[in-house]
């Protein structure tokens, strides 16, 4: 499970500023037709991106179908982005499409975690910062690229301008190190076993129970 987060990323930013874009809008459940994490990019936003789900005829009004946003790697999003269903397919679809970072005033909680676990940088920024970035990017989407520096925790935009962002230390190191979470936790195996030994005395019913 190698995450290959980009510590530094420069890219085209697309704007999807409406609030409450939920994971079902990011990838409709009907698109999840195989037990697989792969190849979901085509289904990203399919309810909006295609005129009909069957023949995949692009909806020209949808931003990710417009030039140059087909190549967008950053999303400037609205409040509560990724709320709703826990499906990690939403993150896999974004990743497969090529999204590296999402900037929004707030995110759905489970989605926010899923992003970090898959190497996508989800950054919380104030709404007016998002607005300013969106306005600037729209002037010349191909030329006005955003530069995100995870180490320095800042976003560079217009010449000489930057916005700092907060990220919890644990999330940051998860993104920077791209650690395999299971392997990292298994380093605590002795502590887990000791916890369970003590807990078994305290709460035996958690460990020994009738089989239904």
């Amino acid at each position, binding site marked *: *499970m190698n995450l290959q987060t980009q510590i530094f990323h420069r890219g085209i930013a697309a704007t999807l500023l409406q609030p409450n874009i939920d994971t079902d809008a990011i990838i409709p459940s*009907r698109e999840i*037709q195989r037990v697989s994490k792969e190849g979901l990019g085509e289904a990203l936003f399919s309810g909006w991106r295609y005129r009909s789900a069957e023949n995949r005829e692009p909806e020209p009004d949808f931003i990710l179908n417009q030039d140059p946003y087909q190549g967008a790697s950053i999303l400037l999003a609205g*409040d509560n982005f990724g709320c709703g269903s*826990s499906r990690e397919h939403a993150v896999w679809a974004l990743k497969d499409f090529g999204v590296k970072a999402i900037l929004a005033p*707030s995110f759905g*909680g489970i989605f926010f975690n899923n992003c970090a676990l898959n190497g996508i940088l989800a950054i919380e920024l104030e709404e007016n910062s998002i607005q300013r970035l969106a306005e600037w990017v729209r002037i010349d989407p191909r030329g006005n690229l955003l530069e995100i520096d995870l180490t320095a925790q800042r976003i560079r935009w217009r010449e000489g301008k930057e916005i700092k962002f907060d990220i919890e230390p644990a999330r940051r190191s998860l993104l920077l190190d791209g650690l395999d979470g299971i392997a990292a936790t298994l380093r605590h195996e002795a502590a887990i076993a000791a916890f369970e030994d003590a807990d078994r005395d305290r709460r035996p*019913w958690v460990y020994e129970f009738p089989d239904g």
Partner: protein
Amino acid sequence: MPDTLLEKLWNLHEVTDLGGRDSLVHIDRIFLHERTGSIALRGLEQAGCGIRAPRRVFCTMDHIVDTRPGRGDITLVPGGREFIEATRHSARKAGIHLFDIDDSRQGIVHVVAAENGIVLPGMSAVCPDSHTCTLGALGALAWGIGSTEAEHAMATSSLRVSRPRSMRVNFHGETAPGVSAKDMILHLIAKFGSRAGRGYAVEFAGPAIRALSMDGRFTICNMAVEMGAFTGMIAPDESTFAYVRDLSFAPRGPLAQQAQAHWRELRSDDGAEFDRELEVDCAQIAPSVTWGANPEQLADINGVVPEPEAFEDRQKSLAARQALAYMDLEPGTPLRSIRIDAAFIGSCTNNRIDDLRTAANYLRNRKKAPWVQAMCVPGSSAVKRLAEAEGLDEIFRAAGFEWREAGCSLCFHAGGESFGGRRVISSTNRNFQGRQGPGARTHLGSPLTVAASACRGYISAAEDSR
């Protein structure tokens, strides 16, 4: 120092402090379902990892199984059969508990986990499903995760978690007759917003919560995630202990007594401090129905669809405008004048026995409006059997409702059955765009409101026909 329920639950499960707000937390129970569990099981297999404690992992079939009578593995969901078969195959191979389609314990994962005593007060439980918070009603620490975290939990019996902040919501005063747990939680979300709970574990407290049956409490905690919360919970009390007694996976004999003594400690101490406290006066709550595409977009049954411009918050007024366009509604329209095409009683929010009794009680000797497609989908096979033993199925059928097998059914659209393009009154938890099918316009309400609306064919409260 007085502790909150959250602090007690956290301390009970913290294996190691990882610095900052993060802890390695022991996970007592893991649940899977065929939609997201299949992929987690396969992911582990591919990574060559075993499951650390397979007996503490449970899987059910609920999300995409067919709910029409006589069902088998065949489902209308495209590719659905692969999910069912893959889940069955992986679950058997991994040696976890599997409640398959024909198992007497099959049902919606959060319903099954509670009614079988698999999750008990004080336990930590996770499932790759956002409504896992339902189980907080037992006084458990239960929350939804993604597939990667489900793999992690299975491989290590633990998760790295950021400690949520603590919030308490006090429901004081008494609810009027006809006002249900669903109206209470919808009212809370509408009052404080669908992001008010972000980063918090929310403890629901107060006399009106104590007065609720366990089924009502599940409804409240189920929707904690709709206010953005990490989870919801309710301190266990006599109702909780009576509920879990004799459930099939619950402790028996002396162990049961030991457990109960432990559970009695699981409450916020007097004087415990919360990061945030909210108050709700239950006397203010009326039966309520959503008019928009987010649970906070709610109005009292006596109210009208609001003007988007009336919201001071710019984001809210933008969201309202978009929602009204989607819902095809004009500001100022009285809720009661909105004609519906379908009525759905189901989902882990509102399809336990209490919900079905309430709806059936209303529907006795009544009939749905001729133009309405009405449907009742029990939360589990056990709920269904119990309802049938009480003759509720006959009442639903006589009223013109379809009586289904247990499952998630039309709570969400996976490409199979659909309310696409129609207006639905629904006892579910999400009214997002397309949630019940492309273009489906969902109005959330209590089971009683759904039953009453089905009969009149327009959004209605039970009192409209008294």
